[in-house]
């Protein structure tokens, strides 16, 4: 049994590494895009007028109220149907996955960023203005560094959620790590071994993210 597993594992290594790389790429892209959009939305809801705040609120509530898998299917089927109707092209399964996961992350980050920005004293922005910094400079050099430090622990948790969320993409046939595991497990009848292996790999992936987060926290907690 063990030998069967280790033999399969060795022969399937390139295959597994390729799909693991897919998982990592999709996660990283979704986290980066989602964080960028989320920071902008957070800024909009912290400073915007009531219309802007209201629109962001609706977006965040809708996104947070829908299960991840439903978001993925919605983008894959509904958005793609609309796109092919209107623009004459469709997104690949992987692109749909990145879009869905980015949307998910953006809502989480938006809420964190809004809270962190609002928690900063008004005096910080005023001190920035007083030395002649313009609005975006104040955000970039004064507000964001402090807000990001504030949201770092929660952000790390959300990032690991995104990595876990990529497993759902196996359901729209994105060739990520979990779909490969499922195929191998079914083909070789080694369910316990392969799912156990997947458990360890995902744990290590997320544990590295946690370690990176802890490192960043230490680095930026000098003040």
């Amino acid at each position, binding site marked *: 049994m063990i030998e069967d597993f280790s033999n399969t594992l060795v022969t399937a290594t390139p295959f597994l590494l390729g799909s693991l790389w897919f998982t990592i790429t999709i996660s990283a892209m979704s986290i980066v895009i989602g964080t960028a959009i989320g920071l902008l939305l957070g800024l909009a809801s912290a400073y915007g007028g009531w219309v802007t705040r209201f629109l962001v609120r609706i977006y965040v509530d809708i996104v947070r109220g829908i299960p991840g898998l439903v978001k993925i299917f919605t983008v894959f089927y509904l958005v793609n149907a609309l796109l092919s109707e209107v623009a004459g092209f469709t997104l690949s399964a992987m692109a749909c996955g990145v879009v869905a996961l980015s949307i998910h992350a953006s809502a989480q980050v938006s809420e964190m960023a809004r809270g962190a920005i609002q928690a900063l004293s008004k*005096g*910080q922005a*005023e*001190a920035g203005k*007083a*030395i*002649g910094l*313009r*609005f975006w400079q104040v955000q970039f*050099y004064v507000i964001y560094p402090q807000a990001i430090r504030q949201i770092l622990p929660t952000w790390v948790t959300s990032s690991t959620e995104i990595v876990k969320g990529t497993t759902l993409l196996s359901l729209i046939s994105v060739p990520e790590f979990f779909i490969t595991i499922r195929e191998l497990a079914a083909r070789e009848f080694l369910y316990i071994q392969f799912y156990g292996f997947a458990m360890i790999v995902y744990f290590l992936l997320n544990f590295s993210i946690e370690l990176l987060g802890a490192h960043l926290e230490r680095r930026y907690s000098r003040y």
Partner: protein
Amino acid sequence: MQSLLKINGLHKSFGNLEVLKGIDLEVNQGQVVSIIGSSGSGKTTLLRCVNLLEEFQAGEIVIEGQLIGYRDKGGRRSSISEAEKARQRALTGMVFQTFNLFPHLSALGNVTLGLRKVLKQPRAEAEETAAHWLDRVGLSERKDYYPSQLSGGQQQRVGIARALAMAPKLMLFDEATSALDPELVGEVLQVMTDLASEGMTMLVVTHEMSFAKDASTRVVFMNEGVIAEEGPPATLLTNPKHPRLQDFLARSQR
């Protein structure tokens, strides 16, 4: 003597509450004007209007012949762009009651930020300028410390260095010593007094009667949104005419 700051008929309301009810004030080059008055008299708001941290509804503020905050379009006021406001804010240096240092930057970083991003100085030059001003407030040994590692008095001196480094025409002090422990007030007042004697033009909102008396050329007493009385410190503080000022001085001496 050359007029540096000229305020005419300044009106400012927060909603229905009128905080400044027509302020006229002129500060010449090199003068130190202390503004005293009880809380709620509008003195902090006046300072914040000069630094464009507050908008105002009527009147004008002129710094070195330059209209601040608004443009005059054939008798009608129109606002100016964010970039223009930022440029005008840099004409004045503001020292806050609560210091408002940037906690994520070292003392040096606090001072260099404006030099690098607003005045576009290269890093080395900015650090040199910043080191000079930190030395000037007696903190050259603390330049790599973060605000949380500094005492209140040291933090406020960094705040003063941060404002001075931008080479402002006018320094605004908003109750700069009010948040400090009594034993730390002295070091900040000393820096302010030195600046005053070196010819810096200053508008100082303060509760420190000793500073108003010894370091300022003129003292302005504000009451309920107007300037109730002004004059040289010797006259105004020892021989007040306005009954509210007499009252205020009697209370602050206790």
